């Protein structure tokens, strides 16, 4: 999909623009038809006057002859004729017989919107304040017997001016309507956007751990306000559950660790006695090793549980992943070398994410330990850190071990799903509880990232995607 410019991505803005357009088009159509109808009415009015006048004069002529018509024309042109009236009577050679025009107009315009009859428009030149001004005239012509022609018309300058002013007024009205609509639209969408942004901001704060935060509501009880109230109710429930969960979690951790602690203390105290029998000492040492194993599993399980519960991190900090990857590479490189493996890191500089350095470090450690345990002799492990599309941080740990069949990749991330593949590394591996990858998955989720297992053919690539650090 094409990306819209930022301003248009808001649905309120789009809606406002749509409304402005629709309203402006509707108002424009309405005003424009009012204009056209008014213009038509004006023309009809003139035409009717001209027609009546012409018919009257023709009746004069038909009844009383040329002399009477000429007298009537002279009378009307001179004194009490209607305003702007134009009369001309010509002989068959278009010579003036009577009327207030000096001669037959040389340039004429055909008229297409008039009643039946012979109509025309032309301009006459009038002197006004020492200037020659064109006055448009609309006129009807009638043929009289003997080849004479009678023309009766009206100076339509005033009406033309009126139409012009009326059109300007309507264009202004449309422009002002659009402007007003736009102002209202911008104001409305700004207000809506501001409220939505406030909600989004509050939600982000809540997601990043401030569970006591609530959305503002202004009591207006409109849709947004109702939504805020409902979301607040939901947050109350979530907070309540989180508190219960955390308390349960804390007391479970405490109730399991305290007895384990006592067991360990007892064993250690007994082991400190100098005159202990050798076989007893060996039994106690084995027991202590088992206690340590239980303890290790418990720690990891509690960590997974806590991360999965989405308990917000109190320790969210800016973590320089580039530096962390280098440090972890340096930490594990000698051990890799000891096992005959190569461990390399390829990192882009200054890649940062927001989160817990400790948990991220532990995740990288788990991935490296997994890779160490499964990479074959002479194998190589590579840690890659990059930023994709400028917005996604990708951390990959790749080995060339046996890999994980595609069908197992989803289940291997669940706790205790140890694969039926034999680690090749060596000592200490029977301690691996199958929790390593689960913890990584939980930590990645806690950082709002994504974990994907892919094929390195041969080998496994564990790919962790995070959001880049933003202030």
């Amino acid at each position, binding site marked *: 999909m094409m990306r819209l410019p930022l301003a248009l991505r808001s649905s309120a803005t789009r809606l406002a623009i749509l409304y402005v357009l629709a309203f402006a088009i509707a108002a424009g159509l309405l005003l424009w038809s009012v204009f056209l109808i008014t213009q038509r009415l004006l023309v009809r009015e003139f035409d009717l006057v001209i027609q009546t006048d012409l018919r009257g004069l023709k009746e004069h002529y038909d009844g009383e002859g040329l002399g009477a018509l000429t007298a009537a024309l002279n009378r009307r042109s001179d004194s009490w004729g209607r305003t702007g009236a134009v009369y001309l009577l010509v002989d068959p050679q278009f010579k003036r017989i009577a009327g207030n025009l000096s001669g037959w107009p040389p340039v004429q315009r055909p008229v297409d919107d008039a009643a039946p009859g012979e109509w025309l428009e032309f301009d006459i030149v009038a002197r006004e304040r020492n200037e020659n001004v064109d006055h448009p005239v609309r006129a009807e012509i009638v043929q009289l017997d003997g080849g004479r022609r009678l023309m009766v018309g009206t100076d339509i300058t005033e009406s033309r001016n009126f139409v012009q002013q009326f059109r300007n007024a309507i264009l202004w009205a449309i422009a002002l309507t659009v402007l007003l609509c736009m102002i209202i639209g911008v104001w409305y969408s700004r207000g809506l956007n501001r409220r939505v942004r406030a909600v989004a901001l509050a939600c982000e704060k809540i997601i990043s751990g401030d569970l006591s935060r609530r959305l503002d509501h202004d009591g207006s009880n409109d849709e947004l306000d109702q939504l805020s109230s409902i979301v607040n109710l939901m947050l109350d429930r979530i907070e309540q559950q989180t508190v219960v969960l955390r308390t349960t979690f804390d007391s479970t951790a405490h109730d399991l660790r305290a007895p384990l*602690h006592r067991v360990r203390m007892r064993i250690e105290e007994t082991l400190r006695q100098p005159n202990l029998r050798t076989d007893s000492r060996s039994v106690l040492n084995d027991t202590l090793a088992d*206690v340590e194993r239980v303890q290790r599993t418990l*720690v990891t399980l509690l*960590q997974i549980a806590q991360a999965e519960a989405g308990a917000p991190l109190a*320790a969210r900090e800016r973590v320089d992943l580039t530096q962390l990857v280098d440090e972890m590479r340096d*930490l594990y490189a000698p051990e890799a070398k000891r096992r005959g493996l190569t461990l390399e890191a390829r990192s882009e500089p200054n890649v940062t994410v927001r989160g*817990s350095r*400790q948990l991220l470090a*532990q995740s990288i*450690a788990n991935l490296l330990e997994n890779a160490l345990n499964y990479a074959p002799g002479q194998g190589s492990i590579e840690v890659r850190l990059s930023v994709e599309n400028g917005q996604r941080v990708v951390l990959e740990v790749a080995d060339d071990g046996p890999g994980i069949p595609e069908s197992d990749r989803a289940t291997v991330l669940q706790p205790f799903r140890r694969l039926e593949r034999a680690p090749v590394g060596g000592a200490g591996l029977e301690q691996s509880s199958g929790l390593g990858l689960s913890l990584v998955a939980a930590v990645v989720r806690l950082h709002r990232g994504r974990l994907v297992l892919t094929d390195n053919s041969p080998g496994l690539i564990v790919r962790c995607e995070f959001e880049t650090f933003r202030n």
Partner: protein
Amino acid sequence: MHVLLIEDDIEAARYLSKGLKEAGYSVDHAADGRDGLYRATEGKFDLIIADRMLPHLDGLAIIAQLRERDDHTPVLILSALGTVDDRVRGLQAGGDDYLTKPFAFVELIARVEALLRRRSNNEVTTRLRVADLEIDLLARTAHRGGKLIELTVKEFQLLEFLMRRRGQVVTRTMLLEGVWDLHFDPQTNLIDVHVSRLRQAVDKGFDLALIRTVRGAGYTLRDDVG
């Protein structure tokens, strides 16, 4: 040295007191937070070991109240929570070190010793010297017997950490925390590999081995013979 142990788990407290006494410390025990705070303010202690979750008054609250009264007795927090956040909160409240239960007793002793020694040596130094081994903290160089030792940045930090605690037992966890700032237990014994590399650089070719393994505990750097 006088240690105050604030711990509500009576049996655990008994074992700890006994162990600490065997290691040469005199121990006072308080079984709840209120009593603990009272004793801490009344008595004069070199170190306080406080459980995180206590009846009446939380371990962190005790530290906060002590610090408010300008009492800077070092406090080691013992916690059965052990989450990343809990550790951060503990140190933010003014705790000096944090140990998750269950822990090995040697770990506790090593940390107690480190906290007690830390107090007495606050002066700014630019050079550290043990026998014929000398490091320059400004130039970040190390010499043994006048000969320059090539070290990586981390190896130098590791050596500095050990030299600052000469004669003390330093556990693997303490090294991981102090040198790498990592607060979890790796599955493999990474630290051993790093220490043995450092040892190669520092002790190889010299009669006196300065970096020594303490069985079942960790390492120590010392120059006495034996």
